[in-house]
Structure formats: C-alpha cells, structure tokens
C-alpha cells in the first residue's frame, strides 16, 4: 500500500497535503477554506462564485476560460461544501500529468492560476467588482430557489432543517436568502478579508513529490492564512419520530426519516456505525432495499445516508403518494429489527465486504482520497485506510447492536402530493 498523505504547514500559513502516486494521469489540486457554519453562511457561499468571475490578471470569465483551455482543459470548479457544522469553500483544479503530454511547467502554471483567482480578485472602489457581485448574488439566490427542483435532495434538506432548528447543521450550505439579499460588494469584500485569514488546506494528488510542489505553492499563494480552532458540533434534542408533511404537486412522494446516532466519526465505535448504516440502507442487500423495494415494490429508491461528522442518519424512499403509512411502518420495522439484534450472519458479512470494498476503492479516485483526508482533519481523527479496514474486519454483531440501541428517532418528513390529500 502507498504512503498516506504527507502534511506540512507552509510559511504562508497554508496546510499542504500531498499524496504521491503514479497511478493517475491527472494531478488534482483542491483548496479548502474553513468557516463555521453560521449566520454568515450566505456570504461565505457567495465568495467562490464572485472570485471565479475575474482576477487582476484574468479580469473576465472569458480570460479565465481561455487560460484553462491553454492548460490542456484544466478542470476548474468553485463551490462550498458542508461537513457537520463546518462550511468550506472548495476550489478544485485538475490538470493532465506532464509526462503523459511530454511538457513541463504545467502544474506550476496551474497552481499559480488557482492562487491568482483566490488571492487577487478584481476589485472596484472598496469592494468587489460591482457587476460581478450583483450577477453572482442573483444567481445564488436563484440557486437557492432552485433547491426545490430536485425533490429527493429537497426532502433531505427540509428534514435536516426540521431536525435542527437551533443547531447550525440545519443551515443550508448556501445560507439564507435574507442574509444574501442584505450583502453589498463592499461588505462581501470585508468578509473575504476575514475569510482570507482563516484555515486553509491544499491537497495535491498525483505523480508529484512533496518537496517539488512545496515551493510552487509557497510562491504562488499570498501570505496571511492562519490555523483555526472550531467548536465541537452542537447537541440537539431528538423529536421522537414527530411527523411533518409538506404538500407539493409532485407525482412521487419522498419520505425521509431522520435519526440521531450515538456515535460520530471521531469515536471508537465509528466502524460499527458504518455497519449500522450499511445493514439498514447502504447496500442492495440492506434491509431497506430488500423490504421497501424488492419485497413490497413500494419504491424505486430506498436507502439510508449517514452524516458521521454531525451524527445524523436519514432513511429515504421515493414512494407512491398514497403509500406513506405503509412505507413508514416498513422502515420503522427495519430500524427496530437492528436494535433487537435481528441481524443475520449473511447481512454482517455482506456488509463487511461492501464496506471494505468502498474503503479500498477510495484510493483509486483522487477526489475520494482528498475527501477522506479532509473528513479526518475536520473530525480531528485521521483514520489511515489500513487501520480502518482492519477495524472493519473486527466489528461484531454486538458492536452493531450497541450502536443501534443508541439510535434515537427524530423528525420524519414526507413530501407528499395532492393525490394524498384527496385520499384523506
């Protein structure tokens, strides 16, 4: 097995993490800037979109696009992501490996382009370029309005909002419209200057050596980044299976059942928690898929999703709008079965193989490697792949039941349609 990430704090304040491997023909660079998820979430979310519009050296969208095409179609993206109660600005840039193309200097140029966009924005007066600010704010507001267009994801977000009205986790990664509407090009720039003094992690995965990129990163990126401490995730009170329905004119109803887990990523029982989610709804052999879809033919999709940084789990299924009670009861029955220890040897072993398979495939995907290491950094618990695989090999049914018995029901959310209303 290859070496894990090499971590190093650079003089400019950036935490550099490199993963050296010759398996990929692309070099992936990802920079994250950490912020607590909170009342400024909207401003933080708007930043990457304004920054990628133009910089000092590449003042227009078209200049940046041409620059990226010159760099052999470097794939560039900017967005925000959310892990637990942390919001992170994410910049990503992928360029072909120099050897494959027989060129040199490509990675250095890519890094300086990335740094240019992040550190040297196009300014106007005492703030960002007014036009860019105005346009991007409008687009972000529309993006928030557009969350309703993806029903399964919308139901999931509504569930988290209902579960966590007082906890930062309930805030969407794009923040609220009210907050964003109140921003100006100047106030956003002020926020940018504060964010620019935050914690930043740069990951580079590919056929590179740590020492080779260290200098390029130090040269390209401006100073001023600082390491930060973040508060632990907040504790909420589970709402005991309280049902909340929202009616829309949909063809398919979406059920999302929320639960709180007694264990999070950083804790000893995390491998057992992975088993819990796997047996419940993480695989095709899982209880949800087998019972909601295969046996009862109620749904096309039925799965559970774990957010281990926060310690919440959601079971979700897309069902006929008239089948809510039936689907809910089947899902509840599966959750109860786990708590009672009704787990077969086959379920245990299939889940073990599936979880180990997922861990192993992470190293075949540069983005997966980065995500995994970032998750460890956020949770203050690096879990080397070999260690986690070894632990997955040792989890017993008793471990899973111990976790299952601590799982508490929270809100059950149902996005229902008008047919359901007629039925009542």
């Amino acid at each position, binding site marked *: 097995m290859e070496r894990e990430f090499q971590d190093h704090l650079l003089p400019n304040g950036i935490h550099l993490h490199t993963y050296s491997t010759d398996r990929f023909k692309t070099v992936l660079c990802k920079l994250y800037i950490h912020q607590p998820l909170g009342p400024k979430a909207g401003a933080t979310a708007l930043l990457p979109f304004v920054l990628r519009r133009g910089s000092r050296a590449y003042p227009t969208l078209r200049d940046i696009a041409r620059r990226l095409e010159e760099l052999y179609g470097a794939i560039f993206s900017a967005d925000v992501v959310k892990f637990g109660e942390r919001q992170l600005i994410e910049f990503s840039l992928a360029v*072909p490996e120099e050897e494959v193309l027989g060129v040199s200097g490509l990675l250095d140029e890519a890094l300086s382009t990335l740094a240019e966009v992040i550190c040297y924005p196009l300014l106007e007066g005492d703030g960002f370029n007014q036009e860019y600010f105005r346009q991007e704010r409008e687009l972000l507001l529309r993006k928030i309005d557009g969350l309703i267009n993806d029903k399964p994801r919308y139901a999931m977000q509504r569930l988290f909002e209902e579960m966590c009205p007082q906890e930062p986790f309930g805030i969407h990664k794009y923040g609220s419209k009210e907050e964003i509407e109140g921003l100006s090009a100047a106030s956003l720039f002020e926020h940018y200057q504060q964010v620019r003094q935050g914690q930043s992690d740069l990951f580079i995965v590919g056929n590179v050596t740590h020492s080779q990129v260290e200098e390029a990163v130090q040269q390209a990126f401006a100073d001023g980044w600082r390491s930060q401490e973040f508060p632990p995730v907040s504790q909420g009170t589970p709402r005991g299976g309280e049902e909340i329905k929202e009616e829309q004119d949909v063809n398919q109803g979406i059920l999302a059942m929320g639960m709180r887990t007694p264990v999070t990523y950083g804790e000893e029982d995390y491998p057992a928690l992975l088993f819990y989610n796997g047996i419940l709804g993480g695989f095709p052999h899982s209880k949800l898929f087998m019972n909601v879809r295969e046996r009862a033919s109620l749904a096309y999709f039925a799965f559970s999703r774990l957010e281990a940084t926060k310690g919440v789990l959601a079971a979700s299924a897309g069902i006929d709008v008239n089948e809510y009670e039936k689907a809910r009861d089947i899902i509840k029955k599966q959750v109860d079965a786990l708590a009672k220890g009704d787990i077969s040897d086959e379920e245990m072993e299939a889940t073990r193989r599936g979880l180990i398979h997922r861990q192993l495939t992470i190293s075949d995907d540069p983005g997966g490697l980065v995500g995994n290491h970032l998750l460890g950094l956020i949770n203050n618990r690096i879990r080397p792949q070999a260690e986690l695989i070894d632990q997955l090999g040792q989890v017993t049914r008793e471990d899973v039941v111990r976790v299952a018995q601590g799982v508490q029901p929270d809100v059950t959310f149902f996005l229902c349609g008008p047919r359901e209303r007629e039925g009542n």
Partner: protein
Amino acid sequence: MPVAIFKDIYHQTVDSGMDVFVLPRKYNKKYAVVGVKYGSVDNEFIVPGKDESVVVPAGIAHFLEHKMFDEEWGNAFERFSQLGASANAYTSYTVTAYLFSATEGFWESFELLLDFVQQPYFTPESVEKEKGIIQQELMMIEDDPERKMFSSLLQGLFQRHPVRIEIGGTVDSIAKITPELLYDCHRTFYHPANMAVCVVGDVDPDEVTKRVRQDLQGRSYEPQGEIRRIMPTEPPEVYRPQVETQMLVSRPRLGIGFKEVGPPLKGKDLLRRETATNLLLQAILGRSSSLYSELYEAGLIDDQFGLRYYASEHFGFTMIEGETEAPDVLYQRIAEGLAKARDEGVTLAELERLRKKTIGRLINAFDSSDYVANSVLGCHFEGNSLGDYLDVLQDLTLADLEERWRHLDPKGAAASIIRPME
C-alpha cells in the same frame, strides 16, 4: 502528441463472436462490464432466420435489464452485494450494460456476471411486480425538470425515430410486457456475437479471455445471422418546433435541439462527425466563446448551461440546455448568436485551443475505470475505438468543423421549454 494511453487496450474476439477488451492498471478496484448492442430504440426487428418483423412494447430493453437480475436461485444483484462487489446496470438508446466493481474475489463475481446475463428467468408474478418499481422510476423522471425537458425535446425533434420515446417506455407500454416477450428479446439480442465484455484493473488479459471462453464453452450457441433492426426513415423536418411543459419548478428551463440530417455513419466517419460537431459547439457556445460570456453577463444562463452532441449510426442530435429566467429571449439570442458565429467562422487558434482542451479532458477521463470500460464498449458497438478518437482529434481540420454548420441549421431545430406552474 505523445499520448498513447488508449493504444494499450487488449482486444480479442473469442468463440461465438464475443469481443473481450482488457486494460490492465494498478488500481485496487477491478471493474467489469458486459454490454449488449441492444437499447431502447430497438423496438422493431427481424429475428435471424425469420421473415417477418416483430414490434415490441417501448421500454422493453430497460425492463429486461431490470429483470435479468432475477435467477431461479435468487437475485444476482443481491448476490454481488453478498460477495462484496458493487453491481449496477443501465440501458441507453443503443446499449444495455451490466457491470460490477470488486476489490476482492473478482473472479467469482466475474463468473456471476457472465452467467446471469445469459440466464433469463422470468415468471408472470415477478414481471408484474417489476411494473410497480419501474412505474416509480418513470414517475421520478416526470418530476425531474431536466429529464422532462430532455424527453420533451426529443419528442419535438423526431417524428418517427424511437429515440423520441423515453428509454423506460411509458406506464401504458410497460403494462403490455410479458415473460414471453422478454424471453424473445433476450434470445434475439443476448447472443455472444452481439455482446462484448471489458475489464479494467489489475488483471491478466489472458486470464480474462480464458474465463470468458470457459463460460461460453458450457453453453451451446448456434452461430447467429444478422439481427435486422428496422429503423423508420426520419424526415428532416422536426415534429414540433416548440414543446412546452408546466412543472413545479422555481425557474424556466430551455433546451434547444438540432436533428442530425446527414446520412447514417459508422466507425471513424461517425467519430469524426461527433468530434467535429462537439468542437464546433464549443467554439460557438463554450465557456471561452464571446457568446457564452454575453449570455452569462446578461443573466440569461448560469454555470450549469450545457452543450452536447449525441451520435449514433442511425440518429444524432445536438442539445443546448440550461435554466433561465427568460427562455424565449435566450432562444432568440442563441439563434442570432449562431448566425453571427457562422458568418465569422472559427479561427485556427480557437481550433488548436479546443483540441488541446479535449485531449486534456480525455486524459482526465482515462483515470476513471468506469469511464474507460463503458466508453470502450460504446465505441466498439459503433464500430470504432478510443484510440481512433485520439487520431480523429489530431487530424481534425477547420473544414471538418465548417461542414457541421449543415447540422446546426435553424430549420432542423426544436425547443423544449419547462415553465413554472402558475
């Protein structure tokens, strides 16, 4: 250009005509896919040895894909999961594919893959039950504005070609599916000569071929004549120049389509057409074009705005689409922008930059085993290869791009608009 990465793909045709492709690489994950040259457009065909054509219900290829996992001994999808492998399947317009990835016990899963795609087992009960699941899948598409826009656009663009029908069919068409019909389709299309397998990962190519051979030896396939697929002649005119749908969405969505009116093409010729069209689209409306910047700055498009040309032997179409506040204005501006771009032409510098970009993107995609394996099969069924793609890309001239303006003729265009419900 020293990019030879796609030239190292191993290829052999074994008994009964099955094609085997292998790309060895040092990943933990081993990825295998079996493809059948049979998709949603193959709704009318003449069974080898017969005289008359058969017409089957729309959506049957996709229904068959779902039902293939049922075996007399249980469910193959679940079995993969038990073996620690992660399986999946998909049906496109022209291909049905079954795949899995595994990090341990690869050969056991590989044998299962080869076996279950050749072992149909349908009962009236299991077929009836599947209708409920597929109905939910079709409902999900009905609620998805992007997919709804896409299927409406194809219905507007094409008059007769079955590409205009949703891959999964309709609630009414799948209601007509019976075990007998499924067996007929399986017998006709799931013959080794109409199938191919591709493995990407840390495996020995000879071992893969050996296993495929061993599997086929145990089954008594008769050599199969040509399956004649009946494709209706598609007139150059569109069916409806504009299709509108109201949905529960926050903002409108516009899709503009152009129908391919050139003759059916195969192999490198098809690849040249596809690549030239895609590069021309990029030059006119890609991120680095002036038209893209204008539309973005006018607030008419966002970063999800997309362009693509879909190419197959018997049909092709361009799709330009995105969410917008003002679909009618956007349609107008794109039409004007296309006319202007046609007058101005593409420069050699632009072509070179886009060539560079496309090569880079191909190298990036190469890192994904899933992409490589599925593209190898997709290319194979259209009579070309990924290596050909690089050749074509390097040989492409401005004249190739110029020729493609014929395809982007406003007369062959249709629009699909999704508007928010009032």
